[in-house]
């Protein structure tokens, strides 16, 4: 019980320690190999399973296999947006140094995942709908998501002061959060070509287990991959912003000597 109490919110030590860029930089070095290995194994399993072993869809044929990258990428593009916005909010409220670094790191990763979702969706659309692109509610709101990520990235370089850039980016990220429920509900609110959600938390999946299991594996794999990418980008941001501090200087000298 005494150990548990260390993790209760009344004791803020963990919060402060996690907020220390130096602590995070050193600790994450130990996490990275294991997380990378796990991400690689889970992604390889899911991809081989989904592409080569899952049965084909009765209506769409084999083109449906794009789902195994399209849905996880779209999933993480949206989860990643929440992570970026929440990191921005923590930065604004508690002035936690590292949260702004996480926010900045999350933007290019989210943009790349949104791009993957849009690209694979377009390629999937050709054999299924007969068109690469339609101005449909789901697709348009995902394109807006890409622009929001791009906006957060651009704002980082629009100010001379790092602090001003971080605050402006955080506010844009928070305002843009309204887009996430719009993406989610777009298939219900508007008449759309896009098929309804495959996975809902509230009901059973609308696909057969043989098809659904590899999708679940791929989503877990994408989460692991996202974590690895976010940590790598955050570590660089830490080095960039703390490059004048003695601990970064000592680290660089040690790396050069060894």
């Amino acid at each position: 019980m005494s150990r548990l109490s260390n993790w209760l919110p009344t004791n803020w030590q963990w919060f402060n320690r996690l907020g220390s860029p130096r602590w995070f930089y050193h600790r994450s070095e130990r996490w990275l190999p294991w997380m990378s290995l796990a991400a690689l194994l889970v992604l390889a399993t899911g991809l081989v399973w989904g592409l080569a072993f899952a049965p084909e869809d009765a209506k769409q044929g084999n083109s449906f296999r794009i789902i195994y990258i399209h849905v996880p990428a779209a999933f993480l593009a949206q989860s990643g947006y929440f992570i970026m916005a929440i990191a921005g909010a923590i930065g604004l409220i508690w002035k936690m140094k590292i949260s702004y670094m996480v926010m900045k790191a999350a933007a290019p990763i989210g943009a790349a995942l949104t791009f993957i979702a849009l690209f694979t969706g377009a390629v999937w659309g050709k054999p299924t709908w007969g068109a690469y692109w339609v101005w449909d509610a789901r697709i348009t709101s995902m394109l807006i998501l890409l622009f929001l990520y791009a906006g957060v990235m651009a704002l980082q370089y629009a100010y001379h002061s790092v602090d001003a850039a971080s605050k402006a980016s955080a506010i844009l990220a928070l305002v843009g959060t309204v887009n996430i429920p719009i993406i989610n509900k777009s298939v219900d609110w508007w008449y759309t070509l896009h098929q309804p959600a495959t996975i809902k938390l509230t009901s059973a999946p609308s696909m057969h287990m043989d098809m659904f299991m590899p999708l679940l594996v791929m989503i877990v794999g994408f989460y692991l991959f996202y974590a690895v990418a976010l940590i790598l980008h955050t570590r660089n941001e830490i080095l960039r912003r703390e490059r004048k501090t003695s601990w970064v200087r000592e680290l660089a000298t040690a790396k050069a000597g060894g």
Partner: protein
Amino acid sequence: MYFESIEALLNMSGHGVYVWSSVAVTLAAMLWLVSAPLLNHRALLKEVNRDIQRQQDRELAEKATVPTDNHKESH
């Protein structure tokens, strides 16, 4: 395997072009997402070392060339 042969897996009854191009672009983007920061990490540490070296050079040069009397005027 669901397919009878590797050719069938690659062809996917005509849909192979769509599926495999999606996979290729996705893997390329994901590879970029982890390789870019790894390369950047090395470059950043080198940059810090260059800064340290430059600062040390400057300090050495100041000690060697500027006598203590002229120190203020030299700036």
